[in-house]
């Protein structure tokens, strides 16, 4: 819609127009004022100017005097040059008509006023701007093929024929004629040289290309044939060229275009034949044809007449045996070259073939990748650069069209609805390569939050303990082989068993939370506090350990296996972990030494290994929890629990003096001392590392004031010492 200001300006312009047409004196002044509006960015105003210019220059002496008109024509050149390049059919048409008048006036002015170089240059600029458009589709954008473009924008091309014929007429000599031509220009003119006729000859060639094309663009061909009569009549120097082309012209040799039906082609043939006949007739009648061509053209006329008579008696559209002679031009375009897409999907974005073609439904992604790659490569190799570019142009235009036809507001609404179905579409409309999407960083959990979460996790684990999952086993065994990759079977849990939860939970406590505390080396006595992270993680681990411990306490007898498994895990992971830390610390130590004295130190690796063997690997966490377990179980042991307790002691991975000493309380209990002595005996026999510690306890008991204990201890001491 035109803005208020546009309408206001046009209203003013209309008033000016009325003034101009009512006053011969005011007209030149009004027209000069209007020239300034040609540069207005509003196309509606430019269009108004184009129409008014045409109207003004087509008036006769009663509105503008001849001398004023020549001056105005010179002043109009700048405006016309601007209008000639505006992409609008209506403006261009008016501009061409105005140029037809202006060109005549200004050319003659220059011819009479040698030396006005600026005017001459501008006139040439306007001329070149217009004549060059004949072989383009301006103001329409070009289509995907030159062939199609030959059939497009014919109204402007037909208008331009008028202008080009005028230029040819003015820029070449016309012998024995009163109408203006190059013959009327002083042969010594400094700007309009006689050689300018070559340009006219060149323009005639451009026009005749319409006839030498391999297809018939009937409206253009017939228009040209009609207008050629002027050149034929006035320019004997060009007649041979025209007659030669006309004589050669045969609709029989023209191909059916891909942009016309057989019916259209057959009708076109008939139409063009007839117009050709009329032109030849005109030339012969007016005795324009050189004598050496007369016979040939007479023959041609006879041929055209008989062919015309023939076809007139028949239905031109009815199929005839001669139809088989019709050859179609090779198709160079795309069946579906539409620059707008009907459905918003990738298929219609890229589809250049007939949309209904069954082939479009073939899913290429079902082909193996190597075949796809070789297909794509050979297709790209086969496609000409030009065709590939045209195809990409079409797809680019479709993208542009889609983007332009979806307002940002629409897209936003879609995003908010963000259904799974819309996802692809959203990507499609919103996609900008320059946009990077990043997720916001997760907010850090506080220690309390972590604790809360780990408590939930622990609860879930124990809930799993209550579930009977044996039924799942079978299923997983059946499907396992195929659905689980081999990599997964290498881990501890191949399939979920009733006890699987415990493996995961213990490992979470032992390995999952462990963190190297770099600030506190194991090898040095250092009182510095552990780092906050380490303390916090250990705190979380201890939450899990406490939970396992409590679980054990709920049913000590039944759950001793769990405890053994857990404590083994604790010891193993802690030992490996700390061994690794000591190894790293030792390595660092020896490397430092090596740096100081490179020659004295030999094989660092073996030295590190050597020293590592001399170190005891501390397992403080294991020790603490094993102590807690022993302290917890011992008070509840009953005389019949001998087997369980010995089993526990035998299966614990590591014992030391401190841990062994916890058995003492058993020994002092008369009812259960038997279990205590059996345990010591067992340890002395089967756990040599703690044999010393056990013997120490026996020694202590042998000094005891309890007689029965004393006796038993002495007896055992004698036996094992």
């Amino acid at each position: 819609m035109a803005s208020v200001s546009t309408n206001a300006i046009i209203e003013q312009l209309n008033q000016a127009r009325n003034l101009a047409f009512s006053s011969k004196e005011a007209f030149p002044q009004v027209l000069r004022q209007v020239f300034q509006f040609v540069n207005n960015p509003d196309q509606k105003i430019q269009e108004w100017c184009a129409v008014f210019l045409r109207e003004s220059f087509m008036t006769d002496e009663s509105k503008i005097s001849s001398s004023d008109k020549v001056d105005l024509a010179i002043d109009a050149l700048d405006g016309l040059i601007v209008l000639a390049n505006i992409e609008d059919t209506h403006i261009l048409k008016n501009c061409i008509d105005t140029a037809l008048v202006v060109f005549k006036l200004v050319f003659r002015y220059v011819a009479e006023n040698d030396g006005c170089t600026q005017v001459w240059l501008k006139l040439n600029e306007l001329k070149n701007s217009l004549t060059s458009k004949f072989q383009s589709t301006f103001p329409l954008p070009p289509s995907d093929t030159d062939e199609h473009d030959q059939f497009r924008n014919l109204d402007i091309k037909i208008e331009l024929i008028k202008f080009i014929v005028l230029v040819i007429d003015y820029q070449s000599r016309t012998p024995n004629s009163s109408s203006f031509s190059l013959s009327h220009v002083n042969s010594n003119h400094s700007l309009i040289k006689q050689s300018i006729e070559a340009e006219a000859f060149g323009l005639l060639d451009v026009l005749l290309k319409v006839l030498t094309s391999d297809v018939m663009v009937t409206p253009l061909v017939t228009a040209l044939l009609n207008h050629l009569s002027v050149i034929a009549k006035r320019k004997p120097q060009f007649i041979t060229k025209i007659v030669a082309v006309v004589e050669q012209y045969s609709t029989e040799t023209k191909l059916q275009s891909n942009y016309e039906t057989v019916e259209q082609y057959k009708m076109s043939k008939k139409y063009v034949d007839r117009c050709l006949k009329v032109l030849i007739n005109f030339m012969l009648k007016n005795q324009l044809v050189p004598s050496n061509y007369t016979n040939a053209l007479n023959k041609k006329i006879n041929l055209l007449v008989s062919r015309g008579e023939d076809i007139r008696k028949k239905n031109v559209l009815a199929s005839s045996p001669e139809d088989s002679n019709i050859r179609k031009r090779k198709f160079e375009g795309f069946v579906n070259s539409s620059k707008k897409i009907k459905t918003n999907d990738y298929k219609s974005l890229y589809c250049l073939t007939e949309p209904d073609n069954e082939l479009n439904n073939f899913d290429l992604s079902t082909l193996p990748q190597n075949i796809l790659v070789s297909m794509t490569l050979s297709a790209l190799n086969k496609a000409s650069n030009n065709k590939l570019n045209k195809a990409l142009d079409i797809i680019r235009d479709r993208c542009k069209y889609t983007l332009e036809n979806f307002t940002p507001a629409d897209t936003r609404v879609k995003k908010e609805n963000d259904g799974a179905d819309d996802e692809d579409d959203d990507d499609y409309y919103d996609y900008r390569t320059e946009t990077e999407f990043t997720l916001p960083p997760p907010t850090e959990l506080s220690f309390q939050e972590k604790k809360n979460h780990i408590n939930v996790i622990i609860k879930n684990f124990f809930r799993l303990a209550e579930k009977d999952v044996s039924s799942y086993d079978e299923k997983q065994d059946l499907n396992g082989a195929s659905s689980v990759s081999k990599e997964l079977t290498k881990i501890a849990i191949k399939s979920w068993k009733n006890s699987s939860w415990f493996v995961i939970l213990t490992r979470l406590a032992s390995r999952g939370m462990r963190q190297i505390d770099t600030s506190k080396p194991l090898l040095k006595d250092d009182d510095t506090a552990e780092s906050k992270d380490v303390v916090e993680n250990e705190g979380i681990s201890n939450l899990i350990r406490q939970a396992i411990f409590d679980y054990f306490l709920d049913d000590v007898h039944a759950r001793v296996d769990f405890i053994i498994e857990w404590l083994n895990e604790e010891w193993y992971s802690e030992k490996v972990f700390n061994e690794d830390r000591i190894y790293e610390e030792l390595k660092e130590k020896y490397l430092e030494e090596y740096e100081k004295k490179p020659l004295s130190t030999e094989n660092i690796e073996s030295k590190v290994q050597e020293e590592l063997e001399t170190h005891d690997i501390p397992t403080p966490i294991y020790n603490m929890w094993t102590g807690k377990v022993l302290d917890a179980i011992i008070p509840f042991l009953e005389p019949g629990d001998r087997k369980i307790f010995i089993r526990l002691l035998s299966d614990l991975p590591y014992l030391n003096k401190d841990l062994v000493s916890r058995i003492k309380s058993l020994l002092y209990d008369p009812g259960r001392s038997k279990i205590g002595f059996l345990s010591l005996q067992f340890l002395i026999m089967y756990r040599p590392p703690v044999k010393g510690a056990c013997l120490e306890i026996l020694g202590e008991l042998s000094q005891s004031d309890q007689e029965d204990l004393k006796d038993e201890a002495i007896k055992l001491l004698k036996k094992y010492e």
Partner: protein
Amino acid sequence: MEDGNLKICTVCASNNNRSMESHKQLRDAGYDVKSFGTGSAVRLPGPSIDKPNVYEFGTPYENIYQDLMSQECRKMYESNGLIHMIDRNRHIKRAPEKWHSNSYAGKFDLVITCEERCFDSVLEDLMTRLCIKTKDNEVKQIVHIINVDIKDDNENAVIGGKGILKLVNMIHEFHNKSKNDRINKSYEDESSIILEDQMIRILAEWQKEHTHLPTLYSVAYY
């Protein structure tokens, strides 16, 4: 044609039968129409084939009517429809007009001839006009010349007139639709709303329905 309605003229040899029948049909349909003849004179059937009634172009239909009515073969003219035809014509316009001297009538967008001879004649005349030295302010305009071949008798003139009306309607509709499409920019390729680009398609479409009315076509300048 850019801004206004189609300016049409129909052309036959004598501007009496075929061009006048279609002139009437087009006028009744509301079109801006004129009609002409390309013959050297107005020739109407006479008492025998070798004795036609010949009048100068410009002779009022009224005069022709009176002349025929005063002749001995009046009955024959009545029975072969000649009287009826001239009677119709005198109610449409004053007199038969000659194509070659019609510059007073203004310019047309569409010239429909009813015989191939007339088509040739119009084209040749327009070529001659192109070659005449013109005034500086004169600008030629595009004209579509279409020949619809009609046999020169009463019945065929009516049938032909209907065909011509249909064709003009199609061009008129295209013209109106294009005007709207241009305003609304509701076209994919502007070429689809350009009459010159689509003319052959329109003619072919029409021809399929009117195979008994052979056509010719040319774009000319005028």
